[in-house]
């Protein structure tokens, strides 16, 4: 259990959190029309007659959207409902052309599942926790209203109208902002692995409604509020914190929490009331008579299962077991599907048994490559160095062609020029040398030039050994094999 508590005047308060995540489905077309679902088109460019709710237009389900949702449900270990049904949620708004949203209230496509979040001492999550998923259903997105384009008019962009969303509803199982953050990160990771949602909160392809209540430990659930459409993990955590604190203040001030919908204002870091239960809509849900119930065949379900990729938890266990990676490395490499994909491409390119190269490769990827990408502000799928080039570099280290120092040097040149490491080594003569004759000659020079230090060393100042190594390596232009240098120095210095 989380130890996160809010310290109020009357003692400690526990926070209870549930999340409803809207994840935009990756598909070529919208949920019920053939219009493009791609992000970034000019306003009202991706709008079919169906999306614009022209008279007589009818929805036709897009199988790809259903497939994505089923695969996501499977990735959450959830029950896939072979029979589900679309309902209409009726309300008037200018961004909702039909006057209703097609959703699934009564019979969702996916039932109960779970998401496991890891222990994270730094974040105050003491132990790994399993958060329940209540359901996943598919529904249409609404359009977008733009109020800043004209002094008196509002403009409507229907590009998003009808785009498929998965609404993933958690159980009220989270007890701290960090847990909510970890849940969202893990959910996003799973969605990206499945390829059903790109998880891009900035572009709005993943947003969360945050349900928060507070209670004294052991008490029944308090009244909750729902904070709508929070669009970053950081804001979700901040919204929970400020809303929970507000609720404690209200209750301790003798007030009562009213069940209502709120909005989070990141500029002032506060939530404020959007509408209360009294003026809430009556959505008048009923089964959509334009659509038949959705019945999934055995083949369809089996095909979805067959298409399901290895998921982060399984991958991490395999990295630790089969590849012998340290837990930390395995966790870092598997948290994001692009990183895992890059790492596996690197192993493939190495052309050797994974266990042989994995550790060195993972260390290099986590420290050198991540460091460089951070510096360059690039994501791993934009890396200027390809997995094949990385594998080549690691091979040059493994066969002694490059020392660690040389490898770093070569890597920098690779980042700059995009050239292959072998070519860089060849053209710039950066090969490590183990030629004992050449090294001995340099050692002799170094000893001659530092006779006083040699005397000190021999007089017992052992720490000077590093100085001789450094001098030798410097004189060799960094190309000497450090092992050989060490060995020869020991012999010479006696």
């Amino acid at each position, binding site marked *: 259990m989380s130890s996160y508590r809010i310290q109020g005047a009357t003692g400690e308060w526990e926070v209870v959190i549930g999340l409803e995540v809207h994840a935009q489905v990756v598909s070529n077309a919208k949920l019920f029309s053939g219009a493009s679902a791609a992000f970034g088109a000019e306003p009202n460019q991706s709008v079919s*007659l169906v999306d*614009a*709710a*022209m*008279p*007589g*237009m*009818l*929805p*036709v*389900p897009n199988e790809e959207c259903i497939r994505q949702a089923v695969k996501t449900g499977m990735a959450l270990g959830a029950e896939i409902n072979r029979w589900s049904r679309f309902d*209409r949620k*009726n309300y*008037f*708004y*200018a961004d909702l*052309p*039909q*006057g*209703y949203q097609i959703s699934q209230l009564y019979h969702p496509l996916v039932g109960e599942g779970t998401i496991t979040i890891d222990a994270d001492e730094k974040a105050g999550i003491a132990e790994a926790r399993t958060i329940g998923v209540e359901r996943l259903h598919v529904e249409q997105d609404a359009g977008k209203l733009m109020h800043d384009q004209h002094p008196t008019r509002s403009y*409507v962009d229907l590009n998003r109208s009808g785009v498929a969303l998965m609404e993933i509803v958690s159980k009220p199982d989270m007890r701290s902002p960090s847990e909510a953050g970890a849940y969202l990160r893990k959910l996003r990771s799973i969605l990206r692995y499945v390829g059903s949602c790109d998880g891009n909160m900035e572009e709005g392809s993943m947003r969360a409604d945050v349900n928060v209540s507070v209670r004294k430990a052991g008490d029944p659930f308090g009244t909750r509020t729902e904070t709508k459409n929070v669009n970053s993990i950081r804001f979700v955590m901040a919204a929970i914190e400020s809303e929970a604190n507000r609720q404690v203040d209200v209750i301790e001030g003798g007030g009562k929490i009213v069940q209502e919908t709120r909005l989070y204002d990141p500029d002032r870091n506060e939530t404020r009331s959007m509408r209360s239960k009294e003026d809430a809509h*009556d959505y*008048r*849900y*009923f089964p959509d*008579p*334009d*659509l*038949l119930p959705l019945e999934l065949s055995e083949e369809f379900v089996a095909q979805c299962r067959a298409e399901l990729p290895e998921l982060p938890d399984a991958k991490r266990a395999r990295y630790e077991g089969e590849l012998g990676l340290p837990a930390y490395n395995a966790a870092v490499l598997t948290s994001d599907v692009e990183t895992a994909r890059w790492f596996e491409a690197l192993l493939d390119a190495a052309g050797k048994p994974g266990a042989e190269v994995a550790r060195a490769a993972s260390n290099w990827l986590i420290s050198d490559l991540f460091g460089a990408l951070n510096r360059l502000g690039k994501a791993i799928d934009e890396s200027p160095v390809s997995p094949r080039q990385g594998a080549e570099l690691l091979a040059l280290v493994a066969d002694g062609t490059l020392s660690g120092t040389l490898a770093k040097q070569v890597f920098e040149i690779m980042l700059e020029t995009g050239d292959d490491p072998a070519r860089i080594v060849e053209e710039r003569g950066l090969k490590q040398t183990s030629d004992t004759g050449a090294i001995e000659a340099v050692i002799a020079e170094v000893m001659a030039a530092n006779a006083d230090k040699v005397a000190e060393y021999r007089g017992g100042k052992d720490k000077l050994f590093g100085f001789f190594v450094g001098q030798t390596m410097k004189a060799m232009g960094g190309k000497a094999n450090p092992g050989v240098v060490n060995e020869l120095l020991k012999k010479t210095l006696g």
Partner: protein
Amino acid sequence: MTAITDLGLAGLRDGFRAGDFSAREIADAFNGAVAGAKALNAFIIETPDHATAAAEAADRARAAGELLPLSGVPLGIKDLFCTAGHQTTAASHMLGGFTPTYESTVTGKLFAAGAGMLGKLNLDQFAMGSSNETSAYGNVVSPWRRNDGGNAPLAPGGSSGGSSSAIAARIVPAATGTDTGGSIRQPAAFTGIAGIKPTYGRCSRFGIVAFASSLDQAGAMAQDVRDSAILLEAMSGFDPKDSTSLDVAVPKWEANLSSDLKGKKVGIPKEYRVDNMPAEIDALWRQGIEWLRDAGAEIVDVSLPHTRYALPTYYIIAPAEASSNLARYDGVRYGLRDLPEGANLQEMYAATRAAGFGPEVKRRILIGTYVLSAGYYDAYYTKAQKVRALIARDFEEAFRQVDVLLTPTAPSAAFALGEKSADPLEMYLNDVFTVPASLAGVPAMSVPAGLDGQGLPLGLQIIGRPLDEQGVLNAGLAIEQRAGFTAKPQNWWAK
């Protein structure tokens, strides 16, 4: 020689093929008839150019030896079907001047089969009504008159009243209709023509302005059973753009027409004998039974025990769906917008919908909103869905024993305009015999079978198994042949 306008669909098609007249002559004759029948108010817009262009294409096709199934035939199109480039209003102010850029699947099929369009036919607004008195473009008048010497204008039935009136008046040879609770069959009965509503899903709903999606079905209206079969064949077929469309082949209904009912069983549902049924209707029904017996059928008494719940069930489900389907008419994207000075979004919606919808449409939107609202949903909508399932099961049970059912189409002959419009409940009773088949989604048709004491047409309804339109048409043909219905309204409207 019979006038071209009297020939009917098959007569026109065959005469055109035989070279008795050109398609252009047909189009000219009907365009003239349409133009001369303004008194009926059967059309919202006339499209003589469309009919003429299709006729010219048909004449060229005939010359090239490339005839299509409906080459040479002009049709009336109920103004609930979206027609590309031609105004489609659903008889509402809300869609006044709305011109779709797209074609409904049904009209697309008809035009692809060579048919031309004489115009968009008047109807009850958004297909809500049983008398054609709810159109924003004025009442359609039936071409029939009572023989009591009074000249009271009569209702052509609804909602496909423009279609029924125009066919009965011989200003179109045939027309499309839509039937949600009887909107093809009841007007067909009122005006002495044939009309068939096929199995739900036979005809695509794509491009038809929706009333109640789970009930709406396009169908054919024509002078007789054969013409209905021909037209329905051209309208039907799977459409991937309609998720409720049935992916089954369209049978050759016309080619397989047969009035020989030997070996067939006809069910007579006892629950259709309602209180206060006019003696003439009852007598006609008995006559119909005799005709079918004469055609070789065995007559079997059957029971559809949930019949009496059909009307209340229908008047919950249809308005519920309508309240949602009509939400899109909000003044934002097309059609009417009423934006009072300083109004906000909600006020614009309210003003637009207040101005754009007629009283009957508003009544049904309110009923539908009420029955779906929180706290009432289970008591009304869920309960109605359960009863609907029971009604459908009644038919399944009955069709285990019999092939088709025979009932009256409507509880009375045509009434005068204004006679029932003050009392919505009395008006709703018009659908008492047609609604059960709609709720069950089974095919049903009305055929003209006789005249009442006032000289007004009466119809009989045949209801069939799902997808057995052939059985329905054949029984209809058997009645038609024996009824020998040749009465025609007096041509009082023509100028």
